């Protein structure tokens, strides 16, 4: 049984803040396959394309037939926990700060044995299931969980190191005016967030969901305009030291590509909000979050960007908006690199067309505010880097992986 995580005590400013340390982060290129799969929370291993042998640790050749064709495939995660140890002494600083640390050997039904992290509720000799998650160094690691869920399972200290669970954490949602703001706030509070701050630009200007947000317990509306550097800095000065999860949902969207717009007015707005807004937030909030990566139960853990899936491949009907999202996607990779020393994760949630006035002329399926909120919470709980929200996003990324050039032609080709 996992003990439920208690809300953290108030921080004592006289005490030294723990400096973030990371687990060993160096991997071979082959082993990065695990990391790529963990970014989406998938349990994948190398399967030999010629003889079918499933192998681990990752190799450059099949240990059964010497084939060098070793695709990563989703794999049966079930196995038996055949040995367990509790590491009580480690020369590595990250683990030294966190001992005792439980690890074990799991014999997978798929074949190989795996040394992995072990959840406190797993019993020796029992059936377990493996998950593949990113650790604080941003690398894929395997962990054994009990076959069936157990009470307070997510509160296991080793598992919590691999996730960005909102429980007991304080969240900033950057734009109250977006249709999804109330659904996001509700879902995060339901997931146990201690406090939700919601940024509000031009507070004097009314908008429909304000009353809904203001009525929620533990929600605080605060002035924030992501297009205004001073505003962003002022808010960071106020809550930057207690923002554990930042959800950047600010967005400026208008239909149109190049010719029918005729000028760069909307394009500038798109870049101001979708690209430079992210940059302003990152410069104001990022350094403090990075330094608070090991700050106890409510340490800084995640930065979430809500992006259009057309950041991957342009949709000419919203061509300029897609371009601003492509810029934001690229910048999010730089942000990921800069937050990594603190162990803070950057999660991009990609959606297809959203259910709102600016996508009224687009046929369904469309992504609802509740679907976005569910995807964000689930992604945080699994500690993901990439979340594909809705059927359109999932379909598009699949086609993009198969052949990005073919997808471009499909998206830009019209009907004829």
């Amino acid at each position, binding site marked *: 049984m996992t003990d439920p995580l208690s809300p953290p005590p108030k921080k004592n400013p006289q005490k030294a803040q723990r400096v973030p340390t990371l*687990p*060993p982060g*160096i*991997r*071979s290129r*082959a*082993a990065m396959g695990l990391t790529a799969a963990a970014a989406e929370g998938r349990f994948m291993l190398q399967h030999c394309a010629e003889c079918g042998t499933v192998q*681990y*640790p*990752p190799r450059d050749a099949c*240990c059964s037939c010497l084939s060098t064709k070793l695709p990563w495939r989703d794999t049966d995660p079930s196995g038996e926990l*055949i*040995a*367990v*140890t*509790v*590491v*009580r*002494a*480690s*020369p*590595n600083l*990250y*683990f030294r700060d966190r*001992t005792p*640390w439980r*690890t*074990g*050997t799991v*014999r997978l039904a798929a074949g190989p*044995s*795996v*040394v*992995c*992290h072990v959840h406190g509720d797993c019993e*020796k*000799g029992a059936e377990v299931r493996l998950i593949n998650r990113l*650790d604080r*160094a941003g*690398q894929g*690691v395997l962990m054994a969980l009990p076959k069936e869920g157990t009470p307070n399972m997510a509160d296991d200290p080793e598992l919590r190191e691999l996730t960005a669970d909102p429980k007991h954490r304080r969240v900033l949602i950057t734009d109250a005016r977006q249709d999804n703001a109330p659904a996001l706030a509700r879902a995060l509070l339901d997931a146990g967030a201690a406090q939700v701050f919601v940024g509000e630009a031009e507070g004097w200007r009314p908008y429909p969901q304000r009353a809904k947000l203001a009525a929620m317990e533990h929600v605080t509306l605060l002035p924030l305009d992501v297009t205004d550097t001073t505003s962003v800095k002022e808010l960071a000065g106020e809550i930057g030291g207690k923002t554990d999860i930042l959800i950047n949902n600010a967005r400026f969207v208008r239909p149109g590509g190049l010719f029918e717009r005729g000028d760069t007015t909307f394009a500038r707005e798109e870049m101001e909000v979708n690209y430079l807004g992210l940059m302003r937030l990152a410069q104001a909030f990022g350094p403090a979050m990075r330094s608070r990566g090991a700050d106890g139960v409510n340490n800084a853990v995640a930065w979430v960007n809500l992006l259009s899936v057309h950041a991957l491949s342009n949709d000419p009907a919203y061509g300029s908006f897609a371009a601003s999202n492509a810029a934001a996607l690229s910048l999010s990779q730089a942000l990921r690199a800069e937050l990594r020393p603190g162990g803070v994760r950057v999660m991009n949630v990609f959606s297809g067309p959203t259910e709102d006035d600016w996508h009224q002329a687009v046929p369904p399926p469309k992504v609802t505010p509740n679907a976005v909120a569910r995807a964000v919470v689930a992604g945080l709980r699994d500690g993901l880097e990439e979340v594909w929200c809705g059927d359109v996003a999932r379909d598009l990324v699949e086609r993009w992986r198969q052949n990005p050039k073919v997808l471009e032609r499909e998206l830009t080709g019209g009907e004829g």
Partner: protein
Amino acid sequence: MSRRQAYDGVVLAAPHSVPYERYSTETAHHWLARGLKGTLDAAGLSKEQIDGFSVASFTLFPDTPVGLTQHLGLSPRWLDSIPMGGASGVVAVRRAARAVQAGDADIVACVAGDTNQIDSFRKLLSSFSRFAMDAAYPYGYGGPNAMFALLTDRYMQEYGAAREDFGRICVAQRDNALRYPHALMKKPLTMKDYLNARPISDPIALFDCVMPCAGAEAFLVMREDEAVRRNLPFARISATTERHNAFPDDPIQLRGGWAVDVDELWQMAGCAPRDMDLVQTYDDYPVISMMQFEDLGFCGKGEAPAFLRERDLKVTGDLPHNTSGGQLSAGQAGAGGGFLGLVEALRQVTGQAGPTQVRGAKRALVSGFGMINYDRGLCSGAAVITGGDA
């Protein structure tokens, strides 16, 4: 298997151990040089008189044994590097003996050793192997302690071994170490001390773990007529085996490569486990010593706990084992740990062991085990050596 040639006409001589130090400010070059000088002095040879050189070391970087020849002013016509950690002693013997037998070299100096600077162990861990980097370090970074904790845990579940069974090995070795002048651990160890020691990685506690240190071990391989001419006590090589990555499909390591080759070993040696006057197992952890007793034919699989309960493993006992205290009590001088048992056995069967001498010792089994690439040791080897006038 009978196609293997005997090691006729080749012998081992001039065992030398450089006294160990817990930490050293010196380099591997320093320790290997002292090992080489020690074995040469024991044989009354100058370095110009050897033409073969075999080296095992982890901390020579950025050098290899090639650089070491210039560093030490050697011009060998045969040079070997043995990257096999705990199996390096047995493997060095195998290779050097064949070189001497074939005339590729006349006298080979085999040297193993390492330094241990304050952060050597951490540095060595961090670059040990690709699988360790990819699949071991990210999981608690317990190093070999954690991996051997897992297989000790499995061994205990599978065969009903208790911590006392492992403790018995450690306590006897400490007793032996009290006789061995160079052992680092000089405080008597009781079973109570063993059981109450600080836990390191369950079920492994402090006295299940070796203490990394600096040191070197060395010996010479030459023709028997050469040893006789120089009036050097020597040992013959009765049999050897070597095996890597045995039983890759075992889900966790409960046996080593010895089990593959055990019949060949005793057939070639022309004797049996009961004929051994002493046994030197590779004792990085006591569970591995147990596996060696089983896999080398002293008892059946899983029977080592019961077998050892009936035996006295001290120098004065009925089954003298790791008579210089083993790595658990003498210290683990890096790759020197792979030579410790062999060099001590060579002293024993040639009557030069001094305070640890087993009375009338003539035949010894030496076993090696090395390289925790990921979840198990990959290299294993064994040798039976016999004192010269036997």
